């Protein structure tokens, strides 16, 4: 992708690295310029944007119910705090990275079930998600939610369970073809002995008698026998920085060529596996022309649409929309994470996008610039508000122009719905 103007370049950054911009905010980014926008995204503290506490920090959670499950109200509150934070944060890239790591580890609330543990896991993804990747992976390895999700909590020296050991190598650190079955076994044995105790608040504990301390050889490193030596071995593999750079690169930039991937891997390695440095290099190379169009997942499509239109969507409705669109936060369908383009281009997602777009248009306030632009047929302005300053594609433009203004009771609502549902808005 090449950008003809600063405005198009910063709109690209906004589509990939934020959860949407309110009307006017694109002007601010344009004034900051491309470098200034990347600085602000990657290092907001440098321009005085304060660090955030956890979205759930001030929530004194105690169970309403006696069966160890959160009530509907509590689950809704958890979502509400999370989604509200995404929509109001001044540190959007922190939360994009948190979402990336949530997708990367793919821990599902369906499996974990214990709400505070799930929220602690999501908070790990945020608070450590832009620092040293070794620390993030180290903490996630003995995170109660992960110990439950991939059965580490029941893996013993006597009967090891390979679920986490395999995915640590295949999905989290080095990738397929960069490890052997013997490595899976070695990592599994070295990580035995951890348990999660429901009665002590779902904390992780190490139980030496459940652990097999026999030294293992993992990815060519001898003497691996516990969590620290396991994480040191996998993250010191030359495959690790390339694997993670490739995955974050595809998340932020779409399809990227092998040279770019290896360049980013080198940057990541040289930065001592600092995720912020990798994110900065990735965004920079994307703006320089190494990005490809991405099929937007439902969550960014929805939140960016809400930010642009000011549509008033309370949390139950937001959750319902995400469920219909096929991407319920904290519920990736399998250990591979959320689905990709082929699913979001599928018939279910396409039909749901149309339905949700009509609802968003209805929920858009009368004085919203997007609704006014749609009512007045100012398609260039509408596209710009929707973070497409280059304008709509010809087919979408023609469809908007041909649409009868009386298609909805409120003038402009139909055109706004059509723009939100259009193929243009699906492509980030």
């Amino acid at each position, binding site marked *: 992708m090449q950008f003809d103007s600063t405005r198009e370049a910063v709109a690209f950054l906004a589509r990939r690295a934020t959860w949407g911009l309110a009307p006017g905010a694109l002007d601010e980014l344009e004034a900051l310029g491309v470098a200034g926008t990347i600085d602000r995204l990657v290092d907001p503290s440098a321009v005085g944007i304060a660090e955030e506490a956890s979205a759930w920090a001030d929530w004194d959670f105690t169970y309403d119910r006696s069966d160890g499950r959160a009530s*509907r109200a509590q689950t*809704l509150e958890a*979502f509400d705090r999370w989604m509200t934070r995404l929509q109001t944060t001044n540190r959007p890239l922190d939360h994009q990275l948190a979402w990336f790591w949530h997708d990367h580890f793919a821990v599902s609330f*369906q*499996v974990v079930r214990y709400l505070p543990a799930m929220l602690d896991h999501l908070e790990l993804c945020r608070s450590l998600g832009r620092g040293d990747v070794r620390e993030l992976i180290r903490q996630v390895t003995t995170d109660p939610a992960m110990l439950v999700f*991939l*059965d580490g909590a*029941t*893996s013993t020296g*006597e*009967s*090891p*369970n*390979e*679920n986490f050991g*395999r995915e640590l190598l295949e999905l989290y650190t080095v990738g*397929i073809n960069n490890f052997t079955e013997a490595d899976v076994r070695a990592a599994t044995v070295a990580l035995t002995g951890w348990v999660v105790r429901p009665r002590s608040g779902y904390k992780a504990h190490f139980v030496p008698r459940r652990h097999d301390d026999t030294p293992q050889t993992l990815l060519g490193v001898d003497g691996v026998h516990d969590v620290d030596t396991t994480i040191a071995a996998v993250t010191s593999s030359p495959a690790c920085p390339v694997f993670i750079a490739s995955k974050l690169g595809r998340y932020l930039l779409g399809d990227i060529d092998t040279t770019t991937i290896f360049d980013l891997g080198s940057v990541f390695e040289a930065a001592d596996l600092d995720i912020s440095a990798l994110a900065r290099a990735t965004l920079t190379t994307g703006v320089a022309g190494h990005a490809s*169009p991405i099929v937007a997942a439902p969550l960014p499509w929805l939140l960016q649409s809400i930010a642009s239109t000011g549509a008033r969507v309370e949390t*139950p*409705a937001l*959750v*319902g*929309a995400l*469920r*219909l669109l096929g991407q*319920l936060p904290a*519920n990736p369908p*399998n*250990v*591979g994470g959320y689905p990709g*383009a*082929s*699913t979001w*281009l*599928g*018939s*279910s*997602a396409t*039909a749901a996008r*149309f*339905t949700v777009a*009509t609802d968003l248009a209805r929920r858009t306030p009368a004085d919203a610039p997007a609704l006014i632009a749609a009512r007045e047929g100012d398609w260039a302005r509408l596209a710009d508000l929707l973070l497409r300053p280059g304008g709509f594609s010809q*087919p*979408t433009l*023609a*469809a908007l122009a*041909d*649409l*009868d203004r*009386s*298609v*909805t*009771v409120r003038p402009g609502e139909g055109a706004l*719905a*059509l723009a939100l*549902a*259009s*193929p*243009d808005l*699906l492509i980030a």
Partner: protein
Amino acid sequence: MPISRRAFLGGAAGAAAVGGGAWATLLGDSIEATRPTAAVPTTSVVTTTTVAGGEAAVATGAGMSVTDRVLVVLEMSGGNDALNTLVPPVGGYHDARPQLAIDDGELVVLGGTDYRLHPALGGLVGFWNDQTMSAIAGVAMPQQSRSHFQAMDTWWSGVPGSPSQTGWLGRWLDLTVDDERNGVPDPLRAIALGGGSPALVGLETMATAIRNPADFNLMTQPGTDTDALIAAFLATSAPLVNEPTLAAAQQAIPGTLDAVALLAATSSDIEDLGYESNTPGAGRSAVELLDTAARIIGMDIGTRVLTVGVSGFDTHAGQLDNHDALLRDIGTALEQFFARLDESGDRERVMVVTTSEFGRRVRENGSGGTDHGNGGLQFVFGPAGNGGVVHGGYELDSLDNGDIPLAIDTRSVYGAALEWLGGDGAADGVFENAPAFLAV
């Protein structure tokens, strides 16, 4: 009475009214609820595009043509535990699984073999007895991987080892589009229920992917001229732009509108089925998805291939209860599916093949579960007279790294399925050097 696809879609456009305002109800739904509420009465009507191309001649009984045949692939994702599904008659099974082995007394006896079925599949015995059901044990791809993703890639592509851009069914659909559809790709010729299947990916073929038939619809707000808005949505899809990703987003729209028109007439009410899956994981139940598949088959709209995706088979922990629920869903789904096909007179047109990316380790782990293994199990439900047989076997005396070794290459099962779809030689060009064993 045969109904042509065009006639059906024309009729459905009038009948398939969907609920304005229903979505608002849905959005107010509970986080814990897994199903949307029913649509309220309509303010809107789904219109549809029509896809050019020949209409499959519909014949029944003895006059059935090979192009009337349908293949249903039931994908059980996560790696179904073969050993506890079709249980071998040897003591080594009990030794390897002190917690997980199922007692002999609970297992379902199958005629003509010492293998026995998991009790949750007891309803399938009738198919075994009338010889429409076969089992293929120890089935795998060569160079089978223990990685979900690598294993699924090769099972979907039918190409061992190296990655392939196309799926085994997609290549068949590509090969036959000229003969069967005058070269015009028809998105309804292949339909994926429960999410898209990469097995259907071809170079020219476009399949229709539907995650959840129950909420698959287009809805608008009250007071909307829905026809006009949907027509405008369709208009954004043409002409295709040059940029391929945006073009792909455009191409998704016409097939979606066709499929909505189709599925609006097939959508079933899960409560009518008297069964609610408690399958772990986020997937839809096999009962619900196979019910939709049966309804689609009954419409004679030229659909040749359906994939049905169900998940949750990655039973690393707590396997006994989870696997029982998963298999109960599968067994109930197949029973109801064939009963519906019997009612509509379509039974003879349909072959069902189950798949799963690998079998699980013979020895149980310490979590009451099993880890990723190798050789697995497939079932084939097809024409009478060929069933009632276990092909291959588990060979527990010659394990491969603690796993069931490959006894039968799954490409030979695929080959049999393609021969069912296309007569002799249909597998040519889809597989190179794939072994064949299962004559249809």
